[in-house]
C-alpha cells in the first residue's frame, strides 16, 4: 500500500488503431481518498483516455500499448478482471444514453447489485435510497431512453452509487445539461465529496467545477501540464492549453487581487462597481430595429404528441439580418419549434411562414433553400468519403452546385486543408465547422443552429462564434437554439425564452437576465459573463463582454507545477 487511493506511475498509452501517436505520455500522479479532482484539457488532450485508464477500461476493454502502471488501493488494475473493480471505482460516461440499457430506471439501478448477487429485498432498499439521494424516485418506472439528458445523467450516476463505490469518475458530465441539471449535478457531487467519496471530473468548462474542486490537473497533448490546488493552477495562463480562462480570475488578476476570486460572487463581494469598470468593458451587440416584413414568422403555432403539448400558441417574428437566440431548458420545445422552420414538422395548428412561404404547403426540399439548418449532432449527417463532397452534396441534390461557391465556402471555414479527409476522422469542432459550411453552401437567407456548442472546447467554440459573427456581418439571419447562455449573449442581439412549449419572454440578454421570474421559470443558468455585465451595465442593451487589454500578464509560461 502506498497511502494513495489511485497511483499512476509513468503511464503511457497508445490505442491499437493509432500506430504512432501516444494518447497519454508519462502520466505520474497520485490521488488520495476524499479528493475532488478537476481533470481538464481541450478536445484530444487525453481526458477521456485517462478516464478509461483510471477505471480499468484500459486495458480490459480497449486494446493498445501500455507502459507504466495504474494501481487502485495498491493493486494494479491489470491484476484483476474489470468486473472486480466496479465496487471500488465507478464511471459515468460522456453520453449517458449509451450507458443505460434496461427497460426501467429501477432495473438500471439494480443491474450492478444483481451482478453482486444481492437478494431482491436488499436491492429494492438500495434502489430506494439512491433514488431518494438523487431525487429520481418519480423516474423509477420510466424507460431510461425516454428521459432528458439531465435525468439520464442522474440515472447513470445512480447506477454507480447503488453499488457503493468510493471513487467516482465522470467524463464531461455537464456537456448536454441545461441550467437546472447543471446546478443539481454540481450539488450532488459536492455532497458526495463532503461524504468522503473521491470525485474525479473530466471537464473542459473549468468554471463549472473549479469552485468545488480541491485539485486541478491540466492535460495537454496527453501529458500533465499543470497539477495542484485550483488557485495555484489558475495562477498560470491556461490559454496555451486551449482552456478558457475564468472571467473572475482574469479580472482578479487584472486588479491584483490575492487570492484570486474563483466565482463572480467572490469577485463582486471584494470589488466595487467602479473598480470593476476599470478593467472590464462590456461590448455591445446592437439590436436591429425591425425592418420590413419578417423573414420568419410563427402565428399561434401549436404542436402536441398524444397528451403531451410540445408547443402552445407560439408567436414569433424574425427580421432580415437579425441574430436571435432561442433559449430554454432541455424539453422546453426549442428543437420542436425549429423543425417547423423548414417543414420537417408541419403546423398542427397555426401558421409558419419562411420568406413568405407557408410551410404547410411548401415541400421540405424547397424550404431547405431558405432555412439552412445545422443540427446538434454532426454524426447524423456525415456520410460521404471526403469533406469536399460532404459540403457539396446538398447543393448538388438541389441542383444549385457552383464550384466557385464551394471553393469560397471551404476557404471561409478553413476547410481547404481538410478537403480530401474523411469526415469521420475530424474532431468534434471540425465536424461542426463542416456541417455549418454544408448549410452555408446553398446560401440560405436564414441559418438555424441547434445547440451548436455541445461538445466543443474553447478554441472550437471561439471559432464557431467567429464564423457566426462573419455570417451576421454579411447580413445573414441567424437563429440559434441553445441552453449555453454565454454563447447566446455572444452571438445574438435578441433572446426568445421558451418554457414548457411556450414563448415566455423576449428581449435583449440583459433584459432577460434582469428578470428573475423568467430565469426561474425557464430554468436558465446565468453565466459569469452575463452576471458581470448585469452588475455593471444592468440597464443598457449589452451583450458580449471582454476584459480590457493591458491587464497584468499571466504569472508564467506553461509548465508543470505540483501542489
Amino acid at each position, binding site marked *: 500500500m502506498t497511502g494513495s487511493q489511485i497511483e499512476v506511475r509513468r503511464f503511457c498509452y497508445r490505442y491499437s488503431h493509432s500506430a504512432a501517436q501516444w494518447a497519454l505520455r508519462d502520466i505520474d500522479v497520485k490521488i488520495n481518498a476524499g479528493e475532488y479532482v478537476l481533470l481538464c484539457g481541450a478536445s484530444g488532450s487525453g481526458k477521456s483516455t485517462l478516464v*478509461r485508464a483510471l*477505471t*480499468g*477500461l484500459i486495458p*480490459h*476493454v480497449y486494446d493498445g500499448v501500455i507502459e507504466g502502471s495504474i494501481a487502485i488501493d495498491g493493486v494494479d488494475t491489470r491484476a484483476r*478482471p*474489470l*468486473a472486480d473493480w*466496479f*465496487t471500488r471505482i*465507478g*464511471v459515468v*460516461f460522456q*453520453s449517458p*444514453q*449509451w*450507458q443505460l*440499457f*434496461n*427497460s*426501467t430506471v*429501477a*432495473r438500471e439501478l*439494480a*443491474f*450492478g*447489485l*444483481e*451482478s*453482486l*448477487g444481492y437478494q*431482491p429485498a436488499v*436491492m*429494492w432498499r438500495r434502489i430506494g435510497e439512491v433514488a431518494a439521494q438523487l431525487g429520481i424516485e418519480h423516474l423509477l418506472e420510466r*424507460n431510461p*431512453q425516454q428521459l432528458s439528458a439531465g435525468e439520464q445523467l442522474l440515472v447513470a450516476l445512480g447506477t454507480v452509487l447503488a453499488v457503493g463505490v468510493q471513487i467516482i469518475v465522470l467524463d464531461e458530465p455537464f456537456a448536454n445539461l441545461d441550467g437546472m441539471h447543471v446546478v443539481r449535478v454540481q450539488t450532488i457531487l459536492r455532497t458526495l465529496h463532503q461524504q468522503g467519496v473521491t470525485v474525479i471530473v473530466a471537464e473542459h468548462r473549468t468554471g463549472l467545477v473549479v469552485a468545488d474542486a480541491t485539485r486541478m490537473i491540466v492535460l495537454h497533448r496527453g501529458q500533465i501540464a499543470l497539477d495542484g490546488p485550483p488557485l495555484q493552477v489558475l495562477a498560470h495562463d491556461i490559454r496555451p492549453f486551449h482552456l478558457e480562462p475564468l472571467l473572475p480570475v482574469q479580472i482578479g488578476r487584472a486588479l491584483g487581487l490575492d487570492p484570486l476570486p474563483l466565482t463572480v460572487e467572490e469577485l463582486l463581494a471584494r470589488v466595487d462597481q467602479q473598480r470593476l469598470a476599470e478593467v472590464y468593458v462590456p461590448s455591445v451587440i446592437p439590436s436591429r430595429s425591425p425592418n420590413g416584413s419578417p423573414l420568419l414568422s410563427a402565428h399561434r403555432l401549436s404542436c402536441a404528441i398524444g397528451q403531451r403539448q410540445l408547443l402552445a400558441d407560439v408567436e414569433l417574428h424574425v427580421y432580415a439580418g437579425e441574430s436571435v437566440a432561442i433559449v430554454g431548458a432541455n424539453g422546453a420545445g426549442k428543437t420542436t419549434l425549429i*423543425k417547423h422552420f*423548414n417543414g*420537417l414538422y408541419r403546423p398542427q395548428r397555426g401558421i409558419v411562414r419562411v420568406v413568405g412561404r407557408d410551410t404547410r404547403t411548401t415541400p*421540405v*426540399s424547397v424550404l*431547405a*433553400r431558405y432555412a*439552412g*439548418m445545422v*443540427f446538434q*449532432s454532426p*454524426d*447524423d*449527417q*456525415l*456520410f460521404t468519403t471526403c469533406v469536399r463532397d460532404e459540403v457539396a*452534396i446538398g*447543393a448538388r*441534390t*438541389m441542383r444549385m452546385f457552383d464550384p466557385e461557391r464551394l471553393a469560397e465556402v471551404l476557404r471561409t471555414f478553413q476547410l481547404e486543408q481538410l478537403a480530401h479527409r474523411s469526415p*469521420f476522422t475530424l474532431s468534434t469542432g471540425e465536424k461542426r465547422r463542416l456541417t455549418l459550411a*454544408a448549410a452555408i453552401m*446553398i446560401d440560405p437567407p436564414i441559418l438555424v443552429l441547434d445547440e451548436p456548442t455541445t461538445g466543443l472546447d474553447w478554441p472550437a467554440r471561439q471559432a464557431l462564434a467567429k464564423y457566426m459573427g462573419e455570417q451576421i456581418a454579411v447580413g445573414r439571419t441567424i437563429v440559434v437554439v441553445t441552453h449555453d447562455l454565454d454563447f447566446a449573449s455572444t452571438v445574438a442581439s435578441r433572446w426568445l425564452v421558451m418554457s414548457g412549449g411556450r414563448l415566455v419572454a423576449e428581449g435583449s440578454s440583459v433584459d432577460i437576465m434582469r428578470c428573475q421570474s423568467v430565469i426561474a421559470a425557464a430554468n436558465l443558468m446565468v453565466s459569469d459573463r452575463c452576471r458581470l455585465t448585469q452588475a455593471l451595465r444592468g440597464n443598457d442593451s449589452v451583450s458580449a463582454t471582454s476584459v480590457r487589454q493591458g491587464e497584468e500578464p499571466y504569472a508564467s509560461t506553461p509548465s508543470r507545477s505540483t501542489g
Partner: protein
Amino acid sequence: MPALHLDPRAKTVIALIWTFAMTVVESVVALIIGLAPILVIVYWSGQQPAFLRWLRLVTVMIAGWVIIALLTLDWQIAVQIGLRILVLASIFFVFLRTTSPEDLGGAWQQMGVPFPIVFLLTASLQYVGVMEHRIRQIIDAQRARGIPLEPGWRALRFYPALLVPLLVQSLTAAEHLAAAMEVRGFGRSGRSQLVAYRWRYRDTVAVGVTLLAASVLVFE
C-alpha cells in the same frame, strides 16, 4: 387483467401452443375461433389503437399472399392463408405487447438460460427504440439539407445518407454498451435477479386450458 398477469414462461408456452395449433388447423372456422380469444385480449388490455396500426402493417403481406393463392390455387385456400397469417401475426402482437423483453429474459434466466444469451435478447430489443429514434434524427438532418429521404423511389439513390450515419452510430453504441456492461459487473458469476418469477396455480390453469382448446381445434 388475469391474462396479462401470467408468468412470462406461461405466456411463452401459451403463445407456442396457440401458434402450433393455428399452423396445423385447416378449417376457416377453426382459424376464426382461434382469432377470437386474441381479439378479446386485445380489447381487454386496451391495445386496440396499437393493434390497428399493426394490422395496417401486416395487411400488405396478407394481401400479397392472398393474391398469389388466388392466382395459383383457389379462393378457399386464399382465405385460409390470409386468415392464418392474420392469426399468427396477432399472436405475435399480443405476446410482445403483454410481455416485456426483460420479463421474458428474466424468466428464461430463472429457467437456467445463461445470462449472456438472455442479455443479448433483452438489450437488443431495448435498443430497437433507440435506433428508431436515431433513424428519425438522421432522416430529419438529411432532409433539412435537401437530401430526399422521404419514402419513395427517389430516396433509394440516397440511402447511403441514412445507412452510413446509422452504421457509424450503431458501432459507437455497441462500443459504449460493451464498456458500460463491463464496468457494471456483467462478467461476474453468481448473478441474482431483482424480480423473482413465480409459477402460480393460475399459470398452470391457463396453460392447461390453452392446451385443451388447441387440442379440440386441431383434432376436431
